[in-house]
């Protein structure tokens, strides 16, 4: 454990020097490469709708809490009302969104990131 972490911290210093010596053009090529672009596109496709929907739902609920008390008071089952239903749905929403994100990200992002890195490394060698 100790050796590993020392290795990685040493490597980091070397790597920083190596990176700083790389011309800006090569980094420009790396971020405009098809591999990197498809990684960013995949992230946008996933995070955009997930985060957008969550923010609209959750912040919408807070506005209802402030301005829509009569609606929050409508009973659903017994004493349980729309307000508490929305709170319960927020828990479900957070968990579902997190599970979807982590599964898709673990499935795709790391693979795409690896491909982008390989592509960039190819660019450096050539």
């Amino acid at each position, binding site marked *: 454990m100790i050796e590993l972490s020392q290795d*990685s911290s040493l490597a980091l210093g070397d790597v920083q020097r190596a990176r700083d010596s790389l011309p800006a053009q090569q980094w420009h090529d790396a971020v405009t490469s098809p591999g990197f672009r498809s990684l960013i596109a995949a992230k946008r496709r996933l995070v955009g709708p997930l985060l957008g929907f969550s923010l609209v739902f959750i912040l919408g609920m807070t506005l209802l809490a402030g301005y829509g008390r009569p609606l929050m008071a409508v009973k659903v089952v017994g004493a349980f009302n729309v307000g508490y239903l929305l*709170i319960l749905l927020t828990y479900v929403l957070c968990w579902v969104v997190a599970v979807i994100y982590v599964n898709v990200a673990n499935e795709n992002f790391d693979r795409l990131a690896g491909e982008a890195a390989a592509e960039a490394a190819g660019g450096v060698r050539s």
Partner: protein
Amino acid sequence: MKALTISIFLAILALTLAITYWAARKTNTASEFYAAGGNLTARANGFALAGDWMSAAAFLGFSGLIAMSGMDGSLYAVAALAAFLVVLMVVAEPVRNTGRFTYGDVIAERMRSRHARLAAVIGTIVVNLAYMVPQMAGAGALIKLMLGISYESAVIMVGIGMLVYVLFGGMIATTWVQIVKAVLLLAAAAVLVMMLLAAVRFDPLTLFVTVEARYGSQMLLPGGYFKHALDPLSLFLSFMFGVAGLPHIMTRFYTVPDARTARKSVLWLMFLAGSFFLVTTLIGFASAMFVGQDAIRAADKGGNLALPLLAQYLGGGPGTFGGQLFLASISAVAFAAILAVVAGLTLASSGAIAHDLYVNVIRRGDVTEAEQVRVARLATLGVGVLAVTLGLLAHGINVGVLVILAIAIAASANFPIILLSMFWRRFNTAGVIGGVAAGLISSVILAFLGPAFLKSDAIFPIVNPTILSMPIGFLGAWLCTVLSRRDAEHEARFDAFVFRAQTGTIVPEAPAVATSARQD
């Protein structure tokens, strides 16, 4: 009866000290001190994150607020879970990919400027102290109540505990203290919920019906605690964007080897802490039903003892062995909760002082490994003494405004600069300084002009300043950036930063291999 409480307290202290002894022998390098060697699994980091996030304020505060004010407390609790959506999807991975030990690392990596790092240090220290002082004050009040010792000795006891963990065991000890605390807290909550459900014949709706019948329909509606219609929105903005700007939460992502593990650890946290936040509504309502609001208020004006009193009731009531055992166990868990949280905060603050300020700003990185660890320990000592002093000074002062401030400053000063650093090519050092200054100053002024400090004479009507101070923070960052001279070289360097932030790959020559090798 006191003997029982004290022996459970001592048992937990002994366990955490044993962990520290074990961890101290594994803490030799700066990476081990600040980041536990970067080798934690997703589950370990997830439990530690949960231990960091389920503070005494969450454990006692949420259930108390629900018992006394109803739905507003439940809204507070769900905000604490929703807070991690932005962390998970936007902040955790890039922060992990571009920093080493601190949030200042990320800003410095992007800006290549000591001034920008200094701004991040100020953001870190102010947020952490504002977070830590109410924890210390809460610990003092709580332990005084449970053990019968004075406020001052209680604060000093917590101070010594956290100092021992962090000084000797660094991040490894802090992590395992947080894991133990999370397990204890969740186990206590699980037992409590099973017993309270049994008491209502496994029909949680009974709780809603009883609370409504006894305390009025107001309990099941917003407005019991929040006075302004925009209060809930401002609170949620504060949590959802502020947690992404809390340095002691970001620091936890440096303890894992890669982005995949960082993601999975947030998922662990969201299920562990989220389940707890969910059941605080049941716990709060059960306290209101079985213990009663009058009895809760009599024990503590703020309602913070609703959960311990419910535990006492479910264990058999005051005076019985079961009741006393339950009360003592819950008190000890609350004590462990405070210790784990302040340890994490102390470590993150000492990172900002030793690693950011001393090693990188003053000495420009020219410091040996052994000296880095030595300086880190010195800084820890300084932070600990400062926290204890402030905790002692806070005695009798209403520190409620600080709780609001910590998260509001994180959302208004830290979050804008971390977000703009990652996504805006032109964003520069002037923007970092402008953003931190604008967010920090506006949230402090608005919080002190608000109801938390001025009560009914409030000039700014909303308790949580974030709804206004976060836009001001972004505005400051944007304005200072566009008013300063453009730097083509700085903007060109954004490519390298963005590549590293998004892929986790440090250099093109060593793709993927570098990250996968570190997993072993």
